[in-house]
């Protein structure tokens, strides 16, 4: 049983991390179509925010809870800054956006190295996350369970926002038909900026979760960015449920491959699996049908 539950539960936690990283991308890439390679650095910004919050609030039981909204705002503001200064000039020019955001990503990594050093810093987990629970012989750490809860809460909040709020309807309208949205009174430029703020902020929240598991690191973002893009594409662009399933599928598959082979071979095998899947189903897991509508 242990050879099944260990990769399943550890993989679920990895999937949850991927999900938080991919949720923001599902907005900025899946919905808006912007290829932002600096998205991983917003994850890193979230991790460093958790570290800095612990320097200010030494009580780790509280600091991590404070770090989550602060990381959301810090990463969100970084995203907003990037959108206003760079990306807004490059809408409908995906290749240019990709190249420029790779540059921004490198600049942010170097900035983090200069400020915090190349080695990275540990983020202490709060007392209430120390310990684990026995599930069929696997000692499942509370930290991993916390990651899953955080991912699911982020998902529910985002889904509810998109579905039930006026702002959510404006995001969906802008994504589905920008010109039409403008002509019914939606200020699409404002919506673009707020969407970028939201998507980047979610990456910041993901960064807090990552920091609890692996600490901070200037290159932390690069670990997740490719996997997060794969998750969004495999799930189907513009589809949150596809992103959720793809994130957990990739996380769990990677954990099983790692159990059977090695960690690096598991990455290769998972990527190969996703590539084969996309060859068979290029539109991803889910697509939305409509009656011949533009």
């Amino acid at each position: 049983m242990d050879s099944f539950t260990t990769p399943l539960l550890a993989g679920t936690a990895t999937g949850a991390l991927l999900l938080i990283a991919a949720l923001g991308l599902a907005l900025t890439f899946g919905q808006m179509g912007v290829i932002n390679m600096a998205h991983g650095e917003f994850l890193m910004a979230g991790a460093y925010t958790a570290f800095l919050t612990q320097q200010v609030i030494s009580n780790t039981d509280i600091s991590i809870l404070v770090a989550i909204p602060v990381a959301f705002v810090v990463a969100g503001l970084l995203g907003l800054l990037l959108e206003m200064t760079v990306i807004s000039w490059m809408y409908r020019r995906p290749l240019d956006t990709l190249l420029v955001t790779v540059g921004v990503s490198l600049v942010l990594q170097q900035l983090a190295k200069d400020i915090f050093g190349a080695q990275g810093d540990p983020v202490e987990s709060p007392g209430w996350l120390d310990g684990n629970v026995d599930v069929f012989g696997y000692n499942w750490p509370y930290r991993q369970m916390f990651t899953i809860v955080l991912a699911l809460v982020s998902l529910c909040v985002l889904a509810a926002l998109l579905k039930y709020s006026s702002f959510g309807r404006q995001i969906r309208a802008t994504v589905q038909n920008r010109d039409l949205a403008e002509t019914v009174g939606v200020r699409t430029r404002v919506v673009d900026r707020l969407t970028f703020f939201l998507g980047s902020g979610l990456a910041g929240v993901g960064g807090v979760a990552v920091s609890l598991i692996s600490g901070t690191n200037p290159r932390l973002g690069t670990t997740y960015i490719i996997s997060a893009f794969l998750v969004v594409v495999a799930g189907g662009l513009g589809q949150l449920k596809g992103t959720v399933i793809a994130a957990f599928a990739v996380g769990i598959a990677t954990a099983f491959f790692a159990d059977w082979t090695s960690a690096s071979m598991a990455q290769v095998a998972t990527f190969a699996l996703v590539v084969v899947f996309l060859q068979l189903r290029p539109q991803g897991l889910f697509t939305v049908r409509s009656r011949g509508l533009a």
Partner: protein
Amino acid sequence: MIEIKGVTAGYGRTMVLHDVSLEVPVGGAVAVMGHNGAGKTTLLRVAVGLIPVRSGTVLLDGEDVTGLRPSGRVRRGLGYVPQGQQAFPHMTTLENLQLITTDRSAIDEVLDTFPALRGLLGRRAGLLSGGQRQQLSIARTLLTRPRMLILDEPTEGIQPNVVAEIEEVITDLTRRGDLSVLLVEQHVGFALRATDRYSVLESGRVTSSGEGGEGALDAVRAAMAV
């Protein structure tokens, strides 16, 4: 009221409209007719703000809105029903309407105009028929409470029984008195019945204009035959 003054506009370096002037007075209704490619839709898109002008101005209730984005013009009382029964396909009929307002009484009011939509509120707009989508498009625009309504071929590609219904609604709107209407329409007879003035556009220029009404039918057909 909208005044389009000496507008030259197009796509990239290709100009489609050349020094076009047109005015719809308060409470008036003007039909713009012409063959395919004459520049009718381009003219409306300029009026709405989707295409920038190379030269000329667009005034809405006397205010120069030439540099204003479409959403800004909507807030100043301009409503636009685009060509092609456009809706937000992955949103339900109700969500399409709630994009403008969540005020249930306002939504009920427009649903009274298009009762067929009542039973389709939970259906995704992408799954509606062309006629239903066009009704939704007009209903959604009416929810913005426009003082100047612009319609681009509202009956194009719609089954005949729904066309009659849409024509009736548009004719009622043009008779309201508090609403100015600019209508682009291929069905010349309907366009002239529904409006009180017409302009014929050919190759991006206004070549003819005059009083509307069914009496103008021969004059318009002659102008369009040139």
